[in-house]
């Protein structure tokens, strides 16, 4: 399949799920989809289009949070980023780890650092933060405040 065929195929197949397709460059496409349909779209891209799951990235944008799932179709050198917007109070999305194991750790990381809950993830333990990190404190959120009383923030000069 060529690049245009892939994009037309996605547009046709997921007419109701896709909100916007942003064609950034010959190598890169951003596809914004509704949060409920992430499992369908991601499994279609992964299984039928034979894409490789690179990684996911979470961003806190004042009024909503955004997760970008990056898929690379190597044959045509096209990077598809699935963009999902989650409205602020209710931060929940279906986990992709039942479909492909590779998303398991990055979902754990997004869960501990941004506090997004992944439904259906089997093992949402902490990945990078220490075990004594307090519950409900998410360091890369915009409203993060220093919680530790023992920190030293000057260089001692």
């Amino acid at each position, binding site marked *: 399949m060529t690049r245009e065929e892939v994009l037309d195929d996605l547009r046709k197949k997921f007419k109701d799920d896709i909100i916007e397709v942003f064609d950034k460059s010959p190598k890169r496409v951003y596809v914004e989809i509704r949060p409920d349909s992430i499992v369908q779209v991601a499994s279609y891209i992964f299984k039928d289009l034979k894409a490789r799951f690179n990684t996911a990235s979470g961003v806190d944008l004042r009024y909503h949070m955004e997760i970008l799932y990056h898929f690379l179709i190597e044959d045509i050198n096209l990077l598809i980023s699935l963009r999902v917007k989650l409205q602020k109070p209710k931060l929940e999305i279906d986990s992709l780890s039942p479909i492909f194991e590779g998303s398991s750790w990055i979902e754990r990381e997004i869960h501990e650092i941004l506090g997004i809950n992944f439904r259906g993830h089997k093992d949402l333990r902490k990945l990078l*933060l*220490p075990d004594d*990190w307090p519950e409900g404190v998410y360091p890369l959120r915009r409203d*993060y405040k220093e919680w*530790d009383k*023992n*920190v*030293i*923030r000057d260089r001692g000069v």
Partner: protein
Amino acid sequence: MSIKLKALLKSPWVFHLSTGSCNNCDIEILDCLTPRFDIERFGMLLVGSIKHADVLLITGSGNRKSMERAKRLYEQIPKPCLVVAVGECALSRGMFIHSYNCPVPIDKVIPVDVYIPGCPPKPEAIIAGVVKLIEKVRKSTEKK
């Protein structure tokens, strides 16, 4: 104490510990071992186990998880030992000073003998620091 330190100066074996650095300091330390700089002429050798080491060499900014491990390593190293901090991150955490994961500088957790600044320090700077360390320890043992 003094005879132990004196014996240590002939061939200080080094254990290299990275507490979450960007690996640039680690590369410069490996450069010191190459024939061009040849730090082995001071009897220095990188060892794989902390129990064989006389010098604990620390790079990186020291985050919450790795400092627990660093503390445990410092307890295991045979005393008397020397601690060398290499790079701006190990000295004052550099650009990570406001990071949520780097609460205290390394020298508040482990007593540090020599600070080698730079981002990353040149191999020459590391050798200069090490020579200064040897000189300092030699002088302190001669007095006694």
